[in-house]
């Protein structure tokens, strides 16, 4: 008995000592969070600029003009311009407005796709940002989304409920499943001092494989008459998120979930007493302890609420897919959400904007591919943007800004 107590004490003291010195991850986050609007905008510009260089350097049409570069440099120049116009033009056409659309419906489809694809990024991004503000480096949104998906899929394929109620129950179950999965991280950190980065990475694997197992097992989630591939039945009509414009566009009420989530996030983090205490822990854990805050308990709550946002993203994914659900439905949202949160500077507005930008990337990349430019360039641009935000000296050196303006 006493030995057990001792162990617990030891774990606690380990937990507190681990939390005393801010680790590299949280220092980096803090630095990124302090990035001002100017720095973010410059980073985006620079990201696109370097993306453009990649596009030009490795495009076949441009490369073929290199032979005659010295006799006819104009040709190389024109080819380069064309690639840029095709590439970024394709991105705009695919994500905002397509003037070449068959009819007016098709012309406006890109912007609806951008909003549709942005919604889950915004919701999961808000969740990630919440943990950043509590001083946690949560990279477990993937696992939390997957667990939310498991819950949503269960309700949408295995439970019969009337129209409306079915959808609401499925959303709530997704949120609860994700929140519980997130709470485990907080609990492990609070009780054992385990670092949340390691815990979240490992729980991502556990969740993914658990979901695959559910999808593979006939009595559980495997589709009727299913074969070897892990895939569920299509969700019941009654559980689907209603679309906004009937069959005209795919966009559904998920975007309203995202707007509501952003509002709740703002209210929670910028106006509420709970958010105030979350931020206190994030900024200065030592002062929070001295102010009588139970830091460990805060971690558990913060992880659970953060994961609840991820659960909303899961519901968005799982209840909008007309075919059966496979694990690929999580669509890397969990990781993109980290980028969204960082780019959005952890504010509700910023995350909403960043989510739209990345939604546009997702919506526009097929059109880029059609234009003959590899859409992987967008991945490079995304990564570069975050890199520049994270490395202020780079931006500073590039634009020759004085110290104060870059902060």
């Amino acid at each position, binding site marked *: 008995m006493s030995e057990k107590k001792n162990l617990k004490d030891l774990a606690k003291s380990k937990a507190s000592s681990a939390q005393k010195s801010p680790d590299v991850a949280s220092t980096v986050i803090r630095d990124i969070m302090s990035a001002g609007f100017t720095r973010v905008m410059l980073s985006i510009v620079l990201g696109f600029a370097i993306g453009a260089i990649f596009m030009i350097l490795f495009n076949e049409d441009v490369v073929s003009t290199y032979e005659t570069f010295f006799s006819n440099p104009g040709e190389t120049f024109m080819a380069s311009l064309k690639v840029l116009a095709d590439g970024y033009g394709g991105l705009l056409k695919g994500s905002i407005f397509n003037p070449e659309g068959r009819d007016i419906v098709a012309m406006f489809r890109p912007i609806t796709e951008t909003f549709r694809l942005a919604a889950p990024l915004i919701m999961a991004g808000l969740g990630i940002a919440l943990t950043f503000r509590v001083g946690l480096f949560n990279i477990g949104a993937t696992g939390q989304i997957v667990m939310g998906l498991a819950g949503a899929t269960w309700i949408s394929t295995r439970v019969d409920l009337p129209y409306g109620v079915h959808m609401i129950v499925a959303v709530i179950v997704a949120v609860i499943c994700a929140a519980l999965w997130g709470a485990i991280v907080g609990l492990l950190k609070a009780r054992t001092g385990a670092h949340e980065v390691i815990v979240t990475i490992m729980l991502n694997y556990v969740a993914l494989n658990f979901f695959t197992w559910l999808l593979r097992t006939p009595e559980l989630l495997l589709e009727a008459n299913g074969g070897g591939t892990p895939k569920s039945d299509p969700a019941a009509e009654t559980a689907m998120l209603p679309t906004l414009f009937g069959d005209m566009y795919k966009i559904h009420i998920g975007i309203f979930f995202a707007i509501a989530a952003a509002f709740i996030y703002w209210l929670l983090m910028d106006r509420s007493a709970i958010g105030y205490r979350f931020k206190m822990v994030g900024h*200065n854990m030592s002062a929070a302890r001295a102010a009588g805050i139970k830091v460990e308990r805060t971690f558990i709550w913060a992880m659970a609420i953060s994961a609840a946002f991820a659960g909303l993203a899961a519901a968005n994914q799982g209840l909008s897919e007309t075919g059966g659900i496979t694990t690929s439905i999580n669509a890397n949202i969990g990781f993109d959400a980290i980028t969204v949160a960082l780019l959005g500077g952890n504010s509700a507005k910023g995350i909403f904007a960043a989510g739209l930008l990345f939604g546009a990337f997702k919506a526009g990349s097929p059109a880029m591919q059609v234009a003959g430019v590899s859409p992987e360039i967008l991945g490079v641009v995304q990564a570069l943007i975050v890199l520049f935000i994270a490395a202020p000296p780079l931006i500073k050196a590039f634009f020759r800004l004085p110290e104060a303006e870059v902060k």
Partner: protein
Amino acid sequence: MKLELRGITKRFGDLVANDDINLVVEPGQIVSLLGENGAGKSTLMNVLYGLYQSDGGQILIDDQAVNFKGPGDAMNAGIGMVHQHFMLIPVFTVAENVALGNEPTKLGGLMDVAAARERVREISDRFGFNVDPDALIQDLPVGVQQRVEIIKALSRDARVLVLDEPTAVLTPQETDELMAIMRQLAANGTSIIFITHKLREVQAVADRIVVIRLGKVVGEAKPTSTASELASMMVGREVHLNVERAPLKKGEVVLSVDKISVRDDRGQLAVNELSLQLHAGEVLAIAGVQGNGQTELAEAIVGLRKLEKGSGKIIYKGKSVESLSVRERLDAFLSYVPEDRKKDGLVSEFNIEENLLLNQSFGDDRGAKFVRRGLLDQAVLKSEAELAIARFDIRTQGSKSLAGKLSGGNQQKVVLAREMSRPHDVLLVAQPTRGVDVGSIEFIHDQIMKERDEQSTAVLLISTELDEVLALADRIAVMYRGKIVGIVPAETSRETLGKMMAGITA
């Protein structure tokens, strides 16, 4: 060697930290650089030591202009610096530490330990430092570690020695010894620049006193100046160094600490079966050199640090409170001003309004008004903050200013405003004026005395500044190595207290 700083100017953005500063140090002189925190003393010394590049002005050595690109250049030119925080490696010996970065080598690049040892011994003997070259740093008292730093500088032929707040970590006796060393070094032709804000030391040892305020040299004072004159020069206005107090009205015992033991972060016993009794309406000061368990004692009383199992009790008005959480103790009776306000007392990224709310329980009568349906009431937050700003004379641009941007004194006033506005019977203040400007010290001391006189609060003051202890205390408990050496009346002489601080029972 004659050192001259001519027209040194250093800017950080809009802030002019050093504004056209001129300073001449003749060989063998002890020049005291006196100024408040943030006056620009450290910046000036960092320019001299090559850590900062000045935006204007020149450094001249023996009338030759020099340009230091880094501390290495400064050292080679004969400038040595002893930082406030020692730059020693605890697990190395004295000789190894002194040799570090300048190791004498034998054939084949091996370190010549014998030569390093000899060097330490030679310097130690020459100045009577009495330092064993083979002792490990971690086994040495702080005062001796400081001598090792001085030896380190001298071993690189420093002709000008900069001592940055050297007495902050010393007992009064160690301080006296340091001053003797300084005089001897000066007699041997070494110049010393002595940075401090302690007036008594300046009066005792300086040949010349240069006062800096807001980045400018405001003038030189004679070593015979009185403390009030020096303080007024530092602050730029009349300063009263004496605290007014009503006669003692000692009440019943409010808080008693009974044989408690507490371990520090490294698991060492920092507080060892310590007992205290604190009465209503008195100021009990815990004096002692830093690092004798004061921090751990305070944290144990607040509940941030667990008592050693079965070691004793903390009793508030007859009730044992050691099982209560920090929150419960704060709510029940306690206000706490932590010694490290940036780490424990404030959130730098929060504004004043938010910092005034830091440890406010939202459950009690006072706290309930801040929250409406789970949301913070912005209007109440603002009005409360404006009240505190007015009452505690917090110099700021407004209640939305970030705490991290305030000066040390104003930060401390925010902490005090918060702690004094919460209902409490016991006020635990640790190092209330550390890093605080002289003007604010006056105000903070008055506030603490008001608590005692008007609220009959039981005040437990933890301070390493003997002046502060003597100014405020009704009784003085001297702490040494986790124990109370003795509790003495406030009239006790400095000398006796100094001895007690070194562990010698009176």
